[in-house]
């Protein structure tokens, strides 16, 4: 029942996407658009097939930066969010700075990372971390502060200490907030890694894109875009799955809403 409902709800999007691809194919054949401007979907598929192993190799490099960057972002966001919740002056001092830091375009920060840390893996990891940190930290801080004050009162009448309240009440309460932040972060992370690679790297999907672009192999460029989309979607779904697995108490309400 649930499966069918989810297929049914995705059907319009799939049909729409299918129609666009067919239209695209027809137009590029009928109008004979040069492949370096707009390759037909079939040409892209061929490029994808021909370069499959090469694309996998580059994806692995990008994925390494994405996963390490995400992990680092999760770690720092958790530590900072808990610290900001525990010590209000820290929150007052740091929170506005975090918001301001978000208005600095990543394109301005990324070159600095490269100047400071070279063209290896580290600057990419840091760029991914920078991009992912904010949605994670903001969501966590929000979640930790939105706990029902009655629940805190109750814990106080049990003489529970602050850490016990944090671990058994605030953190579990903030978990749905954390996971919605992580979903946003996961989709940003691939983008962050690719931007990092554009500015200087030896391998990775960003490098593959640059090379395809410079040699006017537009079909290869499109092929890498498809890989990026699939990678982002996979990460997104993975986060959703992790949320589902780690919050068994949240399943009931979701099922009810869909059922």
């Amino acid at each position, binding site marked *: 029942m649930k499966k069918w409902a989810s297929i049914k709800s995705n059907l319009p999007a799939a049909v729409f996407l299918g129609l666009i691809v067919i239209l695209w194919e027809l137009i590029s054949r009928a109008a004979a658009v040069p492949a370096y401007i707009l390759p037909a979907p079939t040409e892209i598929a061929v490029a994808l097939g021909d370069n499959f192993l090469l694309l996998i190799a580059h994806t692995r490099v990008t994925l390494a930066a994405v996963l390490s960057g995400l992990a680092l972002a999760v770690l720092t966001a958790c530590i900072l969010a808990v610290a900001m919740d525990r010590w209000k002056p820290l929150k007052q001092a740091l929170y506005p700075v975090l918001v301001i830091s978000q208005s600095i375009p990543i394109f301005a920060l990324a070159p600095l990372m490269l100047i400071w840390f070279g063209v290896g893996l580290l600057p990419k990891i840091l760029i991914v971390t920078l991009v992912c940190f904010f949605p994670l930290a903001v969501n966590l801080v929000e979640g930790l502060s939105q706990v*029902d004050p*009655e*629940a805190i*009162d*109750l*814990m*106080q*009448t*049990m*003489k*529970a*200490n602050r850490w*016990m309240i944090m671990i*058994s*009440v605030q953190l*579990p*309460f903030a*978990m749905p907030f954390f996971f919605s932040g992580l979903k946003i972060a996961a989709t940003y992370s691939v983008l962050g890694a690719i931007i990092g690679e554009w500015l200087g790297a030896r391998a990775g999907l960003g490098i593959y894109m640059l090379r395809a672009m410079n040699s006017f192999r537009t079909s290869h460029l499109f092929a890498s875009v498809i890989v990026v989309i699939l990678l982002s979607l996979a990460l997104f779904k993975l986060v959703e799955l992790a949320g589902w697995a780690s*919050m*068994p*108490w949240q399943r*009931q*309400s979701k099922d009810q809403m869909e059922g």
Partner: protein
Amino acid sequence: MIPIEKLQLKEVSSTYSSGEEKLPVLDRVSLSVGAGEFVSVIGPSGSGKSTILKIAAGLLNPDRGKVFIDSSDITGNPQLVGYMPQQDLLFPWKTLKQNAALPLLAAKTKKKEAYARVEEMLPVFGLEGFADYYPYQLSGGMRQRTALMRTMLIDSDLMLLDEPFGALDALTRENMQDWLLRIWERFKRSALFVTHSIDEAIYLSDRVCVISERPGKNVLEQVIELPRPRKKELLTTEKFTSYKQMLIDALSVKS
């Protein structure tokens, strides 16, 4: 002989303020609960009944007045008390067992020992076999019994109960009242019970305090001389009805 008071509120006043607005909630309310006594506070909605409990637990600092537990001044200092707030406040991410064990874990009991004690208590509360259920899998009455069990596992002989049965249907509610009485008799605690049901207050209590509309003031204090253990037959006796009439009259007095 001076009676042994477990809890005393002396001329407590409180104001609710949000921004510019200042709303007087309690106006010199005094009440006491003797050791082993069951006292109910009854009043119209919004008469600051919940505020009385918060102040009694030391969670809220009153503008005026003092709170004593076992004759020591605890005004504004959160105490180890069996506080049961309006909603059951079971944590959805914890199973029944984990929820009930919280007071024990807060008192630094080893996890294994805490769970063993909870398991032992389950039959008393009619919850055997449900230890590993999440709150959403339990019925309203079961959730309330779990919350009550958690309250009982708080190592304090004072219970502060804030309309614990307000959200339950009438039938479950009556069952829960008998549950509460049995538990109270078994554990020999002092209880301050907030409700807006007159029947409930008379049925459960040794004494009923009537509080006026906001700002809440003492209106009437009535000792309930009905035999214990209380039985449902009492509800239709003449004595019960006369208490009821008295309380209805007290509640309809405008402040």
